[in-house]
């Protein structure tokens, strides 16, 4: 009796996750009113909820009532940032930085992430060679600009990447792969692939490592968000961590990839993502097996008269 509310709410949360993860177009009413017909995903039946919010199945009722108000992930992507509850943070660059860095960015393919690119960019912006010295991190500011620009570009190109309809019928895994690949192609369109090794060397300097890792985490978050991942359990973290590792590895692979159209990089990315999925599946299976056997062992001991 004691465990009932816990299992009940966990079950409802799991149902909601399942429903949102697949994001099938389910005809749910826009606003739930008491005694309106409700779709019950667990049984597949339509049941009518009477105004019984304070009765014995209180838990089920409130969970179900909240369901239809949640917009679908695609509808949510109209927002500018990931949080559904908070306004987007201000951009990390002041207008002065943005004007200096955007013009310098055009010189990266020919000059790399160097003070030369910054100085030429300042000249293009009608400023002086000394002007880039206001940037707090010099060349690293230019690298951060590249990472920021390419990351925020993904959202605008969503239809281009996932097809019209925003990849409604694609699996989340496939969308993650498509988005990560689009981001890798962004390096090529910006012309920085051949310059990326020197950028990685700058990013690996001890004082810049925290900012670089934060940017990598933001990218993984952006990709999973745009792919419509709505996990609310510890897998939120494991998915982002594994995607960060895979993306960083793929980017490193890309810097030495000579194949036409970076075919090899794409194959590398696919292999790593498949491996991650397999590993995730294996971990899940092992966990399931352990849980089942532990439950069985407890039951066996109970049947022997142990008071557990």
């Amino acid at each position, binding site marked *: 009796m004691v465990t009932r509310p816990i299992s009940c709410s966990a079950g409802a949360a799991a149902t909601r996750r399942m429903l949102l993860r697949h994001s099938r177009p389910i005809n749910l009413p826009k606003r739930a009113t008491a005694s309106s017909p409700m779709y019950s995903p667990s049984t597949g039946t339509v049941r009518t909820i009477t105004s019984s919010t304070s009765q014995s199945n209180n838990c089920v009722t409130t969970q179900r009532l909240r369901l239809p108000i949640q917009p679908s992930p695609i509808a949510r992507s109209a927002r500018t940032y990931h949080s559904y509850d908070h306004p987007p943070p201000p951009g990390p660059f002041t207008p002065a930085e943005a004007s200096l860095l955007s013009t310098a960015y055009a010189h990266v393919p020919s000059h790399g992430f160097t003070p030369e690119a910054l100085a030429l960019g*300042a000249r293009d912006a009608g*400023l002086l060679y000394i002007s880039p010295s206001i940037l707090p991190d010099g060349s690293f500011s230019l690298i951060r600009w590249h990472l920021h620009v390419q990351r925020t570009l993904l959202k605008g190109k969503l239809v281009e990447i996932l097809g019209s309809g925003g990849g409604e019928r694609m699996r989340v895994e496939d969308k993650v792969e498509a988005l990560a690949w689009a981001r890798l192609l962004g390096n090529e369109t910006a012309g920085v692939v051949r310059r990326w090794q020197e950028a990685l060397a700058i990013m690996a300097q001890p004082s810049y490592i925290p900012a670089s890792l934060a940017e990598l985490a933001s990218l993984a978050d952006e990709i999973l968000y745009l792919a419509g991942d709505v996990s609310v359990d510890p897998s939120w973290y494991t998915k982002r961590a594994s995607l960060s590792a895979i993306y960083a590895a793929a980017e490193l692979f890309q810097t030495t990839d000579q194949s036409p159209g970076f075919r090899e990089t794409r194959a590398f990315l696919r292999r790593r993502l498949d491996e991650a999925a397999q590993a995730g599946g294996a971990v899940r299976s092992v966990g399931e097996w352990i849980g089942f056997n532990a439950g069985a062992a407890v039951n066996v001991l109970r049947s022997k008269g142990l008071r557990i």
Partner: protein
Amino acid sequence: MATRTALRRALPSIRSAITHPEQQSRFLRSFSTTAPCPAPNPSSSTPDYAIPDPSRPTHFGFETVTEAEKRERVAGVFTSVAESYDRMNDLMSFGWHRVWKDHFVASLNPGFSPLTSTSDPLGPQHILDIAGGTGDIAFRLLHTAHVLNRNPSVRVTISDINRAMLTVGKQRSTLLPAPQQAALSFVEANAENLSLTRPLHPYPSAAEPTTHDNQGNQEQAFFDPSTATSSIPDSSVDLYTVAFGIRNFSNIPAALREAHRVLKPGGVFACLEFSKANKHPLFNAVYKEWSFRAIPLIGQLVAADRDSYQYLVESIERFPSQAEFRDMIVDAGFVVAGEGYENLTGGVAAIHKGMKPRAE
């Protein structure tokens, strides 16, 4: 918190403060951060700080004095410390001020120009080192520009209100290579009004303090604007630096506006100054002890001038925090990148930078 309490308890200062109540009030004031409030000026519509007013109250250390009086007393401080200035800096900061200054100059990278086939279309760089006195920053700027960046066209103007400090710098500059000496010029000016300047008239050594200038007046250590012969024109400077000087100015907003006037669009204002180390309370407590107890003592022993160094640490305490000073820079019309400042050694010193934006 427990550590802080324990440390406070252990400090002998508290003990002496309890036994000497008149010292206690002074000790507590050292932690005050309240800026003095200038007298309101309701008759004028322009901000009252915009007009230099010698009779307006400002602060000299923890005392409140008029702007004119502060100017004279600051001049007195630096005239008396000019000779021992560099030795004292080494003793007070354990030589660390050299690291700050090197980092300051390296982060500015003066004289840098990209390798292109065409020559620099923007003309040679002109650097103005305000309160440059003994030349510490200016010589480093020249070295970076001429030697590291191989750009001998860079010129540096050292400006200071105090002729004694400037004369020390002039003497030290004779040890520089000839091309660097040729690129240097020394100018007496008040940073609050750079349209009135004159080339350096060397100040006599302390051995002969009673010489007179050609009008028969007794010579003063600080620049008198009525003797000005030249000026620094609008939009003529690429880089304006001021290191450990701006907190001594009587009217900081006026100096910032003057910096904005002389800088070219795209020119950079860079300031290295003592600041607040509030972020690390334990470190801050040790630092405060050092600055309020040890530094005046060292001043007394080495430079035989306790009051000047007492003023030094008090003026550091009264200087605005990093964010407040950044806002003052922005108010003067500059734009900043990122936070607008960089802390050195946990905030004991900070580098503030701003750029004069292009006129639209």
